[in-house]
């Protein structure tokens, strides 16, 4: 069986589905090939889908999309041993300009793919793309386990574990320090109990990121996100740091869930599902070639993720849109060469996403090489606040002196200055 489309998209996640939607609306005959039983069946999101890029595609999407909660409380928790510090920002949720939502991908991706179908895209399920068809360096379709599909152009958006990019020579196999492994559990709790525990109104959600002692030696963090009637709780760390530490992800998960800073939020909840996924963390330096003759790469496959903010799905949507627009233009010109498709690379390069990634290049490597600093700062913060809040007969002046001493004892001043300089240069 050989069928011919203008374009074939590999994977019905946010990147692929967005690109197909844009193409279908632009008159491109496009097929999305998804290996799962349904879109989203193999996908896991950390937690928050930031609204900005999807709102550009579908203004006011939250009125009809299957979302969990509008995140109004973003917080960091710095874990210590039997103590923790929480810093967060909470606001009165605005229904008209939400910042981000918790979502469950098995619901969201399915709905989103249906939107692409309504726009005219063909969705082919339960079909695995095994390689790209190419001749003389030009990609002309995909080989699947159910036959070949020919097309003028292919969008590779198959997710973090992107073997197609490797096979096509668009990138080498990622190194263990360029990928993170994450595990997550869905813990069911009644919605009113979630609202009570987190101090939320109906439809409002919380996002908490955990750093500190539990992750000693790891370039990783934990997370907790409120869904409608469940909590997503989990953690992730670079594969290399997990290998070095010889930690089993599920053992770490149990310790995480038992920590008092997490336990009181999920207490009494019933675990409904355990999940694992990789997160691309190779950053700018780890990205594949984004385009070549007859092929474009988008989403996690393009290593588009931001470990600082937890962005990923929104960047997938952005890249999918830009890839789709590049294909619509290519079809109008009747030319799918590298030269024409390079418009995608330029558009993505001009976006906030890639400018951030460019600036942050090397930050994670620095953290991995100086991984002891995460623990040092976590200890320092907890020790400083403990000192500050305790009343023990010492004057405030004396306490301030003790706090300075504690901080300096955790990490030498020279290194502190170096860390600050790197953070300043890479983030601000």
């Amino acid at each position, binding site marked *: 069986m050989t069928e011919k489309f203008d374009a074939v998209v590999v994977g019905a996640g946010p990147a692929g589905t967005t690109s197909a939607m844009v193409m279908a609306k632009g008159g491109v005959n496009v097929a999305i090939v998804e290996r799962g039983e349904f879109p989203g069946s193999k996908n896991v999101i950390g937690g928050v889908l930031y609204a900005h890029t999807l709102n550009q595609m579908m203004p006011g999407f939250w009125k009809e999309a299957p979302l969990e909660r509008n995140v109004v409380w973003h917080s960091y928790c710095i874990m210590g041993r039997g103590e923790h510090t929480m810093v967060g920002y909470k606001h009165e949720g605005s229904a008209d300009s939400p910042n981000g939502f918790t979502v469950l991908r098995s619901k969201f991706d399915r709905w989103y793919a249906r939107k692409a179908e309504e726009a005219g895209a063909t969705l082919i399920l339960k079909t695995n793309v095994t390689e790209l068809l190419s001749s003389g360096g030009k990609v002309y379709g995909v080989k699947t386990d159910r036959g070949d599909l020919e097309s003028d152009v292919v969008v590779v958006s198959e997710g973090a574990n992107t073997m197609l990019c490797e096979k096509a020579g668009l990138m080498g196999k990622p190194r*263990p320090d360029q990928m993170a492994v994450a595990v997550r559990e869905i813990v069911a709790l009644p919605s009113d109990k979630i609202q009570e525990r987190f101090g939320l109104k109906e439809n409002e959600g919380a996002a908490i990121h955990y750093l500190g002692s539990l992750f000693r030696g790891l370039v990783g963090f934990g997370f907790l996100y409120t869904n409608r009637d469940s909590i997503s709780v989990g953690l992730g760390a670079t594969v290399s740091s997990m290998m070095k530490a010889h930690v089993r992800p599920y053992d770490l998960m149990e310790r995480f869930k038992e920590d008092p800073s997490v336990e009181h939020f999920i207490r009494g909840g019933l675990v409904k599902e*355990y999940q694992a996924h990789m997160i691309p963390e190779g950053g700018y330096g780890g990205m594949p070639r984004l385009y070549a003759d007859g092929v474009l790469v988008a989403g996690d496959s393009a290593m588009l993720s931001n470990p600082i903010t937890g962005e990923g799905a929104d960047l997938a949507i952005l890249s999918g849109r830009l890839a789709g627009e590049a294909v619509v233009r290519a079809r109008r010109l009747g030319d799918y060469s590298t030269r024409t498709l390079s418009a995608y690379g330029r558009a993505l390069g001009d976006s906030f996403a890639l400018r951030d990634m460019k600036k942050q290049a090397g930050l994670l490597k620095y953290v991995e090489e100086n991984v002891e600093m995460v623990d040092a700062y976590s200890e320092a913060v907890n020790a400083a606040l403990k000192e500050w809040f305790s009343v023990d007969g010492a004057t405030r002046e004396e306490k301030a002196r003790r706090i300075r001493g504690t901080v300096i004892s955790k990490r030498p001043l020279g290194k502190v200055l170096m860390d600050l300089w790197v953070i300043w240069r890479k983030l601000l």
Partner: protein
Amino acid sequence: MRLEEKLYLLRHVVDEESHIRVDQEQCAKCVDRVCLDICPANVYSYSGDRVFVAYENCVECGTCRIACPFIDWRNPLGGTGISYRFG
């Protein structure tokens, strides 16, 4: 909660053929045995010098493929493998 209990919650459509191949010769020589630690679904186990691959428990994260150069991991056949209900 034990991992076995967590894995029991998952829905898989199992293919008859494994999508994971290992190089037993390399496995026998391996000192690190990183697959034992890194796999979130405990797919790999050693019995003496031989590795056993419980591919039907695989959740398709692909981490083993990144951690070990001798694991030949492919996507399972379309429509088979893990199917999350709350992904």
